[in-house]
């Protein structure tokens, strides 16, 4: 190493060889210390319950999206990675092959072998991925064109109309859930009486899958939006009561005791301690529950008169427009992520004392 012959201080070569041993030792000890000193502070990526630096978090968040996208691109654009199908170009002498038809690679090989054995003309084709996995650029294109394409039949909604309809159903269903569920959850978590009276039954209903009420709610509420809203309600309300009750119970008792020694009565304890005390946690719970509402939407929209984004997906899948299907699914994801980020940001405004808790 050249460095060994340089003075660590001046960086100049040593003329005096008797000095070089010292320099050697010095540079060696220097390099070992720099190696041995562990990186401290915000240096580590894997620290137990420590927040990452802002820059690192941003990198990771991008990576979280880039990695799956890269994988998808690789599978789509690098031919030998997957491409298990063959799209027939020229059917040759195979009876049932047609141009544009997709067949399994093994099947294609077998049929061609048969033709070769019998002196027929082998078919030609290109390797491709199955239709249900369109390439990213096609989905990206569909994401735009789906909004610009008029519906196939007159009177059917445009994509943005379907989407608007879905959002309205979710909003209404979740609103009803919240209006009833938040007070009930708070009461269950505060008063043992309400909890003992309400929670066993709620727990019982909770295990019944919400879609099971589909036919029933159509029979009762008709075929329009009402049964769909009802499904969202059933799907989220019962979970909400139990989740919020547990959250409410996690409020530290000493806070309640302190309030009592300051003269707070029962009503004041509820309104001035329990409610503000659990509000940030409640808000976080509601953000998670809102995600569940989207899950139930898919069922809700297929009962009665089909509508909304789920109907769009269902229909496009039937026409084998899988790029549209992916576009719609990604759209739901984007809407969900967008709402959650907005709600998270609002949470920081609503609950300034919760700053370092995400």
């Amino acid at each position, binding site marked *: 190493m050249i460095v060994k012959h340089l003075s660590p201080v001046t960086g100049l070569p040593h003329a005096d060889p008797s000095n070089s041993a010292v320099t050697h030792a010095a540079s060696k000890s220097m390099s070992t210390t720099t190696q041995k000193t562990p990186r401290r502070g915000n240096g580590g990526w894997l620290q137990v319950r420590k927040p990452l630096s802002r820059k690192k978090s941003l990198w990771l968040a991008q990576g979280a999206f880039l990695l799956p996208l890269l994988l998808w691109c690789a599978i789509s654009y690098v031919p030998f990675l997957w491409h298990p199908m063959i799209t027939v170009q020229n059917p040759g002498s195979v009876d049932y092959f047609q141009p544009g038809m997709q067949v399994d690679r093994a099947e294609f090989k077998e049929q061609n072998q048969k033709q070769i054995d019998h002196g027929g003309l082998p078919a030609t084709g290109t390797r491709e991925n199955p239709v249900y996995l369109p390439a990213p650029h096609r989905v990206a294109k569909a994401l735009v064109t789906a909004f610009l394409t008029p519906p196939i039949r007159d009177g059917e909604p445009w994509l943005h109309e379907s989407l608007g309809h879905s959002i309205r159903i979710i909003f209404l269903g979740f609103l009803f859930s919240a209006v009833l569920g938040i007070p009930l959850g708070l009461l269950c978590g505060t008063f043992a009486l309400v909890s003992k009276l309400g929670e066993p039954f709620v727990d019982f209903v909770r295990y019944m899958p919400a879609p099971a009420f589909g036919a029933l709610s159509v029979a009762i509420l008709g075929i329009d939006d009402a049964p769909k809203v009802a499904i969202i309600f059933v799907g989220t309300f019962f979970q909400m009561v139990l989740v919020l009750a547990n959250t409410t119970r996690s409020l530290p008792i*000493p*806070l309640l*005791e*302190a*309030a*009592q*020694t*300051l*003269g*707070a*009565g029962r009503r*004041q304890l509820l309104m*001035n*301690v329990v409610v*503000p*005390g659990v*509000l*940030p946690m409640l808000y976080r719970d509601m953000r998670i529950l809102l995600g569940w509402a989207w899950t139930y939407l898919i069922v809700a929209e297929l009962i009665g008169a089909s509508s909304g984004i789920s109907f769009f997906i269902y229909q496009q899948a039937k026409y084998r427009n899988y790029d549209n299907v992916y576009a719609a699914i990604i759209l739901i994801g984007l809407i969900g992520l967008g709402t959650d980020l907005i709600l998270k940001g609002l949470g920081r405004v609503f*609950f*300034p*004392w919760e*700053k*370092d808790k995400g």
Partner: protein
Amino acid sequence: MEEALVLPDYLDLSPELRKRFESIAARETILEVSHLRKEFPGMENRPPILGDISFEVKRREFICVIGASGCGKSTMLRMLGGLEPCTAGEVRVSGKSVHGPGADRGMVFQEYTLFPWLTVKKNVMFGPRMAGQGRDSSEAEALQWLEMVGLADRVDAYPNQLSGGMKQRVAIARALANYPDILLMDEPFGALDAQTRSQMQRHLLQIWRNVDVTILFVTHDLDEAIFLADRIVVLGAHPGRILEIIQVPVDRPRSQAQALSPHFLAVKKRLEQLIHPEDPDAVKSLPMIRMARVGTEAEP
């Protein structure tokens, strides 16, 4: 109860101190604890957590309660605060029997119990607001108390932005804003470092000198108890009972320097004998400590 007020005969007292103790004894009784007993459900065939506890606290007195860990100090304090029901016996504050928590008994706990969603100022305003006081007047009140505990510049901070010592000062201000008859404190400085702790002790004494409030202070730190208290209630365990009530023959205002005074050391020695006896049965037959009379300066 009478014997509690008898001066321990192992110490000679200066006339000034004697006069002080006599004047305290002549004041009205703020807290009256009689035959207090505590058992927790399901522990019937074991000795009770607290046996038969009786004592009185006079107005503006500073009482420390000391005892080995687990002897029931916190339990007793919670009973006085009304947070824990009594198995038997009675607690009276200013003559009124205690049944449940109330604003006449302020409490400060070891763990931090400030409301994290309220700013420092609003935390202190909590009590007055609960009592139906208007926003403006409770705010003025809160600012005044925060000034007293030296936090006038942090009124708009949230509790999680404060140090441990600051949090406890806010907790004290919050309790005092209700003008309680008695302030019950359960190892409020237990989680603080030594430096902050002694700072807080001096600070508390200063507040106590300026405010008409009686303080019952639980601690397991002997020096803290002697530094703060007029009288020290020494609790023993199994069952929790009063071993002795010691009058602290150290002049006020107190200073750190007194920690080396013979009176201070004598009390400390006695407390050590009571709390950590070599032979638990020998407590009663301990030889009394004799010591020379020490000249004390007159009280200001």
